[in-house]
């Protein structure tokens, strides 16, 4: 009996030690598969795949903030914009390598999140949501006030040609896909590790009962700021990737609807579950395509064309909340 118990205990410890390695193995495996996939599919699929990866990063930032740390942000598009502008300035003004630009996008947005988080840490619930919402509305307009940000015309975000060793015929979309998916894999792996670490446990404790967490010695305000800063950095990377794909950053790329769309994607994915972010990214890329194809087929009026994407997202959101509140994954789980 004692022997059995000991063996079970050691297995549990072994499993917890093994878990990050297993995660790393799965991410490397995923990367390898995507690399193979990138040589097999057409250029447009690669371009769409890069968008899926970009949105997946954006959704991961929301899941970290809202799902794990319990803070609601309606303005993540603004944080994406911060990252996007930081990246563009790194390329245009400092002439640094695009990869450095994406790292800068992450760091600057993270720093911005840290400062913002410091200011809004005492807010919670609707107040924090309201503050971030105001940010999402105001930030793009603020970009117009500073000539260095290029006003309404914005700035170019050109990652340039792919490295010469890949040859002249190497598709730029494959290059986009590689950059976006590699960035997504690294950052989602990073977020998954955070969620599984002491930080993650603290975040969840804070989310479920802030007072109890505080009684256990958790500095709730500091942890909230930490979560906000990390989430902002991840959102910044997503912003950098997004403008890389459309080769330029301007305020109109980050409308309020983008923030709400990402939040919807996170809810559809399962707010407490990082595993579905790719699905969330797929949904965000697929919905406009489905809407356009439907409008073309049924010959809908202008009002239908305008409203259909929003309607589809809303319908999906309602269905997700009703039937898969914890994400689609639990449908496939065995019932015990």
């Amino acid at each position, binding site marked *: 009996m004692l022997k059995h118990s000991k063996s079970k205990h050691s297995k549990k410890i072994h499993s917890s030690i093994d878990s990050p390695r*297993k995660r790393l193995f799965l991410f490397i495996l995923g990367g390898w598969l995507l690399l*193979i996939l990138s040589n097999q599919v*057409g250029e447009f699929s690669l371009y769409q795949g890069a968008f899926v990866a970009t949105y997946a990063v954006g959704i991961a930032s929301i899941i970290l903030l809202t799902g794990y740390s319990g803070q609601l942000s309606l303005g993540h598009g603004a944080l994406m914009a911060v990252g996007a502008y930081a990246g563009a300035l790194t390329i245009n003004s400092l002439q640094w390598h695009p990869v450095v630009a994406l790292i800068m996008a992450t760091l600057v947005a993270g720093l911005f999140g840290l400062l913002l988080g410091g200011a809004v840490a005492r807010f919670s619930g609707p107040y924090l949501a309201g503050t971030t919402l105001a940010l999402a509305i105001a930030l793009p307009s603020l970009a117009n006030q500073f000539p260095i940000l290029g006003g309404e015309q914005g700035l170019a975000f050109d990652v340039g040609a792919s490295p010469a060793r890949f040859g002249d015929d190497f598709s730029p979309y494959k290059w986009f896909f590689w950059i976006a998916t590699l960035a997504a894999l690294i950052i989602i792996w990073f977020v998954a590790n955070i969620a599984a670490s002491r930080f993650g446990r603290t975040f969840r404790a804070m989310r479920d009962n802030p007072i109890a967490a505080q009684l256990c010695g958790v500095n709730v305000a500091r942890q909230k700021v930490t979560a906000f800063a990390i989430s902002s950095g991840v959102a910044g990377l997503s912003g950098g990737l997004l403008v890389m794909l*459309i080769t*330029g950053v*301007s305020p*109109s790329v980050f409308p309020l609807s983008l923030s709400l769309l990402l939040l919807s994607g996170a809810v559809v994915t399962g707010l407490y579950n990082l595993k579905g972010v790719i699905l969330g990214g797929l949904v965000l890329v697929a919905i406009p395509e489905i809407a356009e194809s439907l409008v073309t087929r049924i010959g809908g009026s202008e009002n239908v*064309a305008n409203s259909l994407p929003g309607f589809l997202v809303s319908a999906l959101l309602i269905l997700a909340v009703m039937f898969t509140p914890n994400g689609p994954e639990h449908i496939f789980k065995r019932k015990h």
Partner: protein
Amino acid sequence: MIRNTRTKRAVIASALITAGAMVLSTIPAQAAETTGVTATTIKLGISSPKSGAAGTAYKKVPGAMKAYFDYINANGGVNGRKITLVSHDDGYNVKRAATQTTKLVLNDQVFAIVGALGTATHRNAYKAANLAKNNVPSLFVNSGFSGFANKALYPTTFAGLPSYPMEAKVMAKFIKDNPVLAPQASFLIAQDDEFGVDGIAGFKEAGHKFSDNPILYPQGGLSSTIAEGALAKLAAAPGKPVLVLFGTTDTTATLLKAAEKLSLTTKFTFLAGSVGADATTLLALGVKATTVDGVITASFFPDAKDATDEYVKQFTAINTKYNKGVPFDNTVLQGMNSAMLTVQALRAAGKNLTRTGLMNAIDTKGSTFASAGLAPLNFSATSRVGYNGYWLGQLNAKGELKPFGGKLTLYTTDSTSGPVTASTFVRKSIPKNGIPNN
């Protein structure tokens, strides 16, 4: 051996995906020069706003082009090939324009892009879709941004309009030469992107000084709040100031409705750019006929309501048959004219159609194409700007555009420091039944 069930599942799923990916074959590469062309078809594509505020004003463009192509197809096509037009909605949004244009090139495999609409949208789309590297022609872009004429940056773009600096220079001359308008204060409300900035540069080039700094509004559209605030401020100026609008028709509508709300319609002389003054759209967007009456605008086309114009007459007939239920207006006229230019370009490129051949044909023969435009076509080995002139007219309550002062005077100029001069240009007659025979 993998003991963990989840890992095992992941590995099996991965193996299946890999196998699936291996089976998937890539689309067979067609020679890039003839992508989208078969022995019997030519596939063209357009990304333009069909939804959103700008969509309200410009959604008719792709339909009008398709109607003209259908008419040509019904009459034998171009060198035996039928034209198909793939149209995607970009909502006048730079991100969607980039993805939709990329989709046209990579997914729909079009031969060329035709009639893309918007400055900022096309600028981003051009780079994102790699039109230069893929050597995809972008014909008759509905933008007057002078930068599109830069062959080094946009080697495959051909503008479908005169440039915005040309328009601004002609407007500046019009104000200067008009004894009633010249002494009045003048203000500018412009779209805050290359569109507006290009216009501002044109006014500067012409030496015109506005009474205050230009009021710039976001590319996404002018809100009624900004419009009302701007009008209330500008109304403090004495006399009857000239208010120049350098934006899209939906923003002109917003501004005119704001003037109605503030009872300022008679306070200003409204001078709208050619892009922003389609009377049918203004009326459809709820601007009162009495407000539209008197708006001055520049144009390089005949008025879409002028049934005596041979091009308008022919295009109206085609519109009635192939674009059922859509009223004929300036937007439809613009779409059909672009389609007609496209057909002539395709014919000029000959039977062995290639992308390079098509672009060379416009460079060498584009200035001789038949066109509804009252200004000369401006294509040459060194110019990619569609037209090079404007005339000034005034809208009446019926939405008709009549030459200002009763006599149509065409002014031609260039995008830089060249003079603005009155022109005696007479356009080519429309080919028989509107079917090009070049």
